[in-house]
């Protein structure tokens, strides 16, 4: 299987997969713990409007996608913070309109016939070197911003109201977080396509959450898992001649199903653990042990 690395497109694909997995691991962690999967889906799909805009204006579609999804993230963020009701509806409408606008802009662009499927389903095998550099820069931006604002992001994710009481600028930070989601979504679009972006953003983080009780631990584990899924999916797609983006998503989804089953089974193992604890309690002559959660 290693002979595939003689091709530059394959080396680029592996690099792109790893860079995107890193961003998705970090940002996906926030998406999962903040329960904004739907909003993130909206941001990534609305990016299609930006692709259409880029093509219509004759500029790089990725530039269009970045600016459009940034705008969408701000709009959706403000709606979700300020509207009292119907937030999910508003996000759904923006989601659909973003995509529709993209299609219409491409319709009215004269003589355009490029392969739009690559944006919808990803084109990891066609990532040019310049995009790899861009992804590296975006990863660096994400890591620096998250490192600087880690404790604030933790606090607003855990308890927004308390954070605003102690003086954290909750709304501004929330919008910064959504902007990072927008950037990550556009990156992931390159690898799995915008339709499947949400899988890369949520699945590794959702699995990690089952195995770690720390936010930074979740980020590291999600990045590693995302890399594994991407590379395994890439390899399977190569072996069996399948669409890489879809194969990566299927690998991730299968891993999620397996890990959920394992997680729920291991929770049921709580009973033997309790028995062990009781024996230890007896052996200690009744001295209290603090190893299990104590219910008072």
């Amino acid at each position, binding site marked *: 299987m290693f002979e595939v690395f003689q091709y530059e497109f394959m080396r680029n694909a592996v690099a792109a997969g790893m860079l995107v997995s890193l961003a998705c691991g970090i940002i996906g962690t926030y998406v999962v*713990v903040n*329960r904004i999967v739907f909003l993130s889906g909206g941001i990534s799909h609305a990016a299609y409007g930006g692709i259409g805009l880029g093509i219509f204006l004759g500029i790089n579609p990725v530039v269009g996608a970045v600016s459009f999804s940034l705008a969408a993230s701000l709009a959706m963020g403000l709606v979700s913070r300020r509207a009292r009701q119907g937030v999910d509806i508003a996000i759904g409408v923006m989601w659909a309109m973003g995509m529709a606008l993209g299609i219409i802009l491409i319709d009215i662009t004269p003589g355009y016939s490029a392969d739009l499927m690559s944006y919808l389903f990803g084109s990891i095998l066609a990532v040019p070197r310049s995009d790899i550099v861009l992804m590296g820069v975006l990863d660096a931006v994400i890591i620096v911003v998250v490192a*600087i*604002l880690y*404790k*604030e992001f*933790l*606090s607003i*994710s*855990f*308890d927004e*109201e*308390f*954070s*605003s*009481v*102690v*003086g*954290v*600028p909750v709304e501004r930070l929330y919008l910064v977080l959504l902007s990072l989601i927008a950037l990550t979504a556009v990156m992931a679009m390159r690898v799995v396509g915008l339709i499947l972006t949400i899988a890369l953003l949520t699945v590794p983080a959702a699995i990690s*959450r089952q195995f*770690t*009780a*720390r*936010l930074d*631990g*979740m980020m590291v584990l999600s990045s590693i898992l995302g890399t594994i899924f991407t590379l395994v999916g890439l390899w399977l797609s190569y072996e069996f001649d399948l669409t890489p983006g879809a194969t990566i998503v299927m690998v991730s989804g299968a891993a999620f199903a397996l890990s959920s089953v394992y997680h729920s089974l291991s929770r049921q193992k709580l009973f033997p653990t309790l028995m062990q604890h009781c024996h230890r309690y007896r052996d200690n002559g009744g001295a209290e042990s*603090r190893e299990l*959660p*104590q*219910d*008072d």
Partner: protein
Amino acid sequence: MQRTPIGAGTTDEVIRLEDVWVHYGGIPVLEDVSLLVREHDFIGVIGPNGGGKTTLIKVILGLVRPSRGKVTVLGTSPQKGRRFVGYVPQYSLFDRDFPVSVWDVVLMGRLGHTGCLRRYTDEDRAVATDALSAVEMLDLKDRQIGRLSWGQTQRVLIARALAAKPKVLLLDEPAAALDSRIEAGLYDLLRTLNKEVTIVMVSHDIGVISTYVKSIACLNRRLVYHNSRDITRDMLQAGYECPVELIAHGLAHRVLDTHEEVPE
């Protein structure tokens, strides 16, 4: 209903509400509420669900803007006064599965002092340690928040509020979901803390609270407060439709001062 809060003008005032009205979508939630909280007060605000207790707390925190009336916290606006207020929200409202340790939660109380773009200092960590010791939770500091009992979680949230070094503690239903023994332990803790900080606590439970607090207010859109521990008949009239429920609470102590027939 007093127009001017009792003891107005004294320098030890911590929170002052004057003729405060709050409307949600045109419907009044708080009507003409006036309240003066002084240093080292320990006020229990009781009232039925939907009586505006949480709204009252949010008004003091500046999270809800009154449609009429004036609120000052330590002589300034609620938004500025927040720095001196320790807020203990209803703990049933957050996600207990959240991947965060007790220690990191308590440090969040320091965010207002550290400021954005800065790391926690040794002083922050020292204050957080003290706060956890005060609530006797230091030995569980590395535990994930969801692996605590409700009573322990409540103590952690109090520690987080204390980490802000507040002059006032505001607690929203701290004893909901606690059994009576844990509840008593919690109130004992609050009474100890009251030596240092002023406490305002709201609760829909009229029972045990009255033996621990220094004074009781009753809130059902309107607030009745006499700066005493007794629950008077006008409070019950204002606060509850059915005082019988209160007397039949089955508690060992007496809630009402005297209970006699009301001459109509």
